């Protein structure tokens, strides 16, 4: 598969898993193989499973059961949060 570029964002407690230079934007551009799944990216960044709660691609929710199979497409934004809430 060809290399693609995606934007990877980690927020709240998960931003500690971003490289230092990405922490002021919470975002990192990744060049990945087009066959890479969400689960593989989570594994690559060693994100603790219990902190991977809200997973959005371009703002749309990806249920836990789909994360092992869902691959990323060129230009998509993958954003992940630990359990959070507000009001």
């Amino acid at each position: 598969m060809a290399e693609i570029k995606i934007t990877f964002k980690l927020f709240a407690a998960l931003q500690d898993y971003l490289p230092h230079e990405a922490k002021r934007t919470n975002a990192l551009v990744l060049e990945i193989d087009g066959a890479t799944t969400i689960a593989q990216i989570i594994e690559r960044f060693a994100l603790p499973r219990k902190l991977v709660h809200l997973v959005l691609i371009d703002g749309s929710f990806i249920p836990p059961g789909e994360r092992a199979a869902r691959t990323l497409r060129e230009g998509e934004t993958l954003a992940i949060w630990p359990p959070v809430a507000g009001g």
Partner: protein
Amino acid sequence: MGWARKILRVDLSKGTCKSEPLNMEWAQQYLGQRGLATKYFVEEVDPKVDPLSPANKLIMATGPLTGTMASTGGRYSVITKGALTGAIACSNSGGYIGAELKMAGWDMIIFEGKSPKPVYLSIQDDVAELRDAAHLWGKTTWDTEEIIKSSHHDPQVRVCSIGRAGENGVLYACIVNDLHRAAGRSGVGTVMGSKNLKAVAVRGTVGVSGIRDFKAFMTATTAAKKVLADNAVTGQGLPTYGTQVLMNVINEMGALPTRNAKEVQFEGARKISAEAMHEKRLSDGKANLVTNAACFGCTIACGRISQVDKNHWSVVNSPKYWGATGGLEYEAAWSLGAADGVDDLDALTVANMICNEDGFDPITFGATVGAVMELYTMGVLTKEQIGIEAPFGSAQALLEIAHMTAEGRGFGKEMGLGSARLTAKYGHPELSMSVKGQEFPAYDPRGIQGMGLTYATSNRGACHLRSYTVASEVLGIPVKTDPLVTEGKPALVMAFQDATAAFDSSGTCIFTTFAWSLVDLAPQIDAACEGGEAGWSVERLAELGARIWNMERLFNNAAGFTAKDDDLPTRLKTEPAQTGPAKGLVSGIDKMVPEYYKLRGWDTAGVPDKETLARLGL
């Protein structure tokens, strides 16, 4: 028993304070705080009353768990007919004064009439008296609290007060307690100001006694605290990041109303988010967030204490804003920020301080600034009229308008009208992002459909806290639902509304519901309160919530509201979201309301039918 069984009736016209027993029959039907005080209110006040007339009443009420060992048991509510909306108003606040009132031996205070001169109410346990407040009139809430504590020679006195906004008739004035907590919405502070009531100062040393089954209460409250501690949201997420953590979430989802809801995503969201509050500023090397903070008895501690850069242009000559004080919560950061296109975190923090200092609702204020900025952009309002150039994104305009509103000068007087009246005055009522006269908060109904129904049907005007379906549609609590569809939302909204009404009547905080359900609340109430043979079950609390909701609805209907008022601003129904997952979508409110009425047991005009009233004992 949970209740103190005693209420204080203050006749401001006569200057009298009288104790009377709590109506325990009503307590069995309406529990406390929001429910029980609203029952008193609807029984005593004509729904057609002018909110600012002496005939309107204002009730400050605690719940049976207020002041107890239950986690978050520090809440109190203010019930009146709202100055901004003309609808039933119930504004809920944390801090410490609610618990102090309960520990002084009172369940609630009913204010009636109007004082001929400015006064404040002093309560020292069972001694209550009205005192002259001439020296306090014209003071901010911050100064008022300091002066009262000093004159009482007691730093432990708890104070709630109105600022200059409440004196000047800003229609969305708050009642601020403990410096930066507030009964914030619908203009309850305006009603207080109309009565020449400046403040309430309370010192309670009696304590809260009479828990029905103390051992069971200890067991229930301990178990419930463990639920909060073990939950990732209430145990870690909220204390660390506060409500502001939602800024990036909602923006990514394309549901952040931006520039008066013309757009649904804000390019500056990250700069005003919880993550930004945590990081060190480039200017002075310090973070905006100093620490988190808790209200009375709270084991979550979501509150924000912030400090701005002393050299920031907005405060460089104003040392009073240099200290650490109440910081931005999500709704205020949105209304002062995204709604106005402003991304200067320190400027927003200062604007929020001004709202606390002089007591006005940052949600309505910020949303009204957004409407003004749109009118300015259209050329309807000019620099000469406003007093400053006011394009979207101008932090200078935001702060100058905040100062003008606080001080009641210049264009600030028009700002005090709120967006519905202001935009109508200038011929563009469609630019007010409000329902029943109250501005909606930080969730765009095009991207989170359930919140559209929440806003449209909220009994106190647009509000997120009457049924926070964001929990389900965004965060998956208790189950994840699709935010972009309308199917299932009427039932979801109704369930949230009823459960919320029960929580709001208990003395606990609605934020517990990220971990708790009625299953966790019921044992605590049952152990604290006499409940007859049936006790306080989940089913009883859910029915109580429905009873309260319908009671509020009946008041609004009698006040003149109709089904036409259960609607959203035209923009949300005709201008589709331009970006994000909701791109191309408008709110499906017209599909949801009829189904909601059916589920509620209301006719097509939104009036509860006989069976519904009989079922709920109304």
